[in-house]
């Protein structure tokens, strides 16, 4: 990593840390939805199981969902969008840094600022709710490894969403649509295993599934070691593919920039 990347990451990290209230609320929001999820599923599951999840497994599933969604929603998406919307992007074009790489570095900085609170929140949830433990030590390691891919995947999905600002001139609607796709197809709202077959296939064909279902499946042993490694490989492929896709789209969309003034 070049020093310029590190500099960009540090700036957003510091900025994010400075706004303590926003930071706190990210975790609080996740906490809300975790509590509601626990109440709902405890009521639905009772002593039984649904789609192969019993109560202990579901607790683990929801806590993993809390961790992944806290991380996924912690980046600097509005900062990126505003650069395009208010025309700052024109100045960025004159800088001797790669736009996508610089934004990626910033994004990682923003996410990194949320890591401590996400981990504390998760640890607290584990202590309070006593979820199922990982199926094996190896599964635990692989789960942690699969979680790392959330960083590049979250950036790529957000960057692609932000790029649409070149066309729509607005980000709010795009942000809502992205949040919905992520919440639904990650399995955060309802486990993929409960969906009808065709929807399951669709979900597994999209990158969103790796935000909750993949780490939770590895953790709970719903896939064996080979399956886990396969899923991690798919995550890596998505990370690379989305990065390249973003590059291609950027080079086309940036032509839309109109520079006013004189």
């Amino acid at each position: 990593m070049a020093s310029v990347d590190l500099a960009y990451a540090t700036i957003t990290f510091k900025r994010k840390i400075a706004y303590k209230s926003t930071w706190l609320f990210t975790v609080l929001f996740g906490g809300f939805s975790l509590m509601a999820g626990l109440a709902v599923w405890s009521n639905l599951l009772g002593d039984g199981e649904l789609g192969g999840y019993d109560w202990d497994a579901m607790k683990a599933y929801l806590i993993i969902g809390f961790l992944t969604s806290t991380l996924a929603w912690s980046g600097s998406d509005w900062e990126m969008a505003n650069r395009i919307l208010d025309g700052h992007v024109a100045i960025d074009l004159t800088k001797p840094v790669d736009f996508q790489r610089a934004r990626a570095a910033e994004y990682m900085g923003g996410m990194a600022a949320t890591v401590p609170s996400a981990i504390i929140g998760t640890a607290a949830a584990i202590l309070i709710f006593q979820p199922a433990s990982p199926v094996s030590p190896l599964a635990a390691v692989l789960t942690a490894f699969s979680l790392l891919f959330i960083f590049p995947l979250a950036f790529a999905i957000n960057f692609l969403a932000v790029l649409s600002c070149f066309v729509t001139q607005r980000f709010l609607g795009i942000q809502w649509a992205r949040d919905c796709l992520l919440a639904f197809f990650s399995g955060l709202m309802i486990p993929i295993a409960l969906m009808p077959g065709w929807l399951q296939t669709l979900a597994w064909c999209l990158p969103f599934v790796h935000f909750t279902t993949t780490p939770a499946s590895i953790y709970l042993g719903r896939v064996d070691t080979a399956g886990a490694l396969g899923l991690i490989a798919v995550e890596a492929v998505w990370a690379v593919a989305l990065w390249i896709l973003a590059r291609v789209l950027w080079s086309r969309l940036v032509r839309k920039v109109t520079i006013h003034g004189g």
Partner: protein
Amino acid sequence: MAVDALGARHTAGVYRRSIGAYLRSIAEYPADFWVMAIAGSFWQVMMFAFMTILFGNVTTVAGWDYHEMLVLAGFLSTGWASTALFWDGIWDTGKMIIEGDMDYRLTRPASVLVQIGSKHVGMQVFGEMTLGLVMLGIGWTGAGLGLATVPVGLFLLVCSAVIQAALLTIANAANFWMKGRTPILAFMLTELQNEAMRFPLTIFPATVKLVLTFGLPLAFASFIPAQILTGRLDPWWLVGPPIAAIATAALAVWIFKRGLRAYDSAGN
């Protein structure tokens, strides 16, 4: 008394003109309209899908069947979405305080609250409302509620819209004291609705139920009406939502006025 009536007519006129101007401006930017309307329908489509998938696996949630749950979800969506139609400007309160835009509103000869509330329309409402009504309609017929219940449903919906708008006003008015561009409390209110209120409140612990019914009367905007409509509560409960609506609206106006008094301009 005559002065009061005149004042109310003036306020209503200001509201109508302000929101009318915005509605006309939407027609000028059709692309923007469609992006927002479609984005607004996303969450509702997802809610609908969630319910349908869930009830593909279970038959009841805390004693509520699929159609009754759709009545609850549809009622919540429609009531909440309607605030985006007639009171969306309130979301700008925090921004206007920080940017000093509030000064400009204060100098105009019209109620500041009305000027802000009618500042713009959340175009997502067109998507949200459509899907909300679809859910409500399917749930309504499926649960066998019939046409005779429609007037009661409409009355409860109006109460619900007033409660939601009043709570939003209070949450946004908090920015008079909190000093921040982002309406954090209003976001929390939205999140609480999305996460907790789409399920029958009975699944939550007793304290949560009490707080959401009498502390922060969100239950009067969705869960209690849905219970009345599905015959779970005695018709006597019909007096609850209008009382909650009047009380929250009065409180909202009072808090907003206190906020304006605490407002000390942005300075330079």
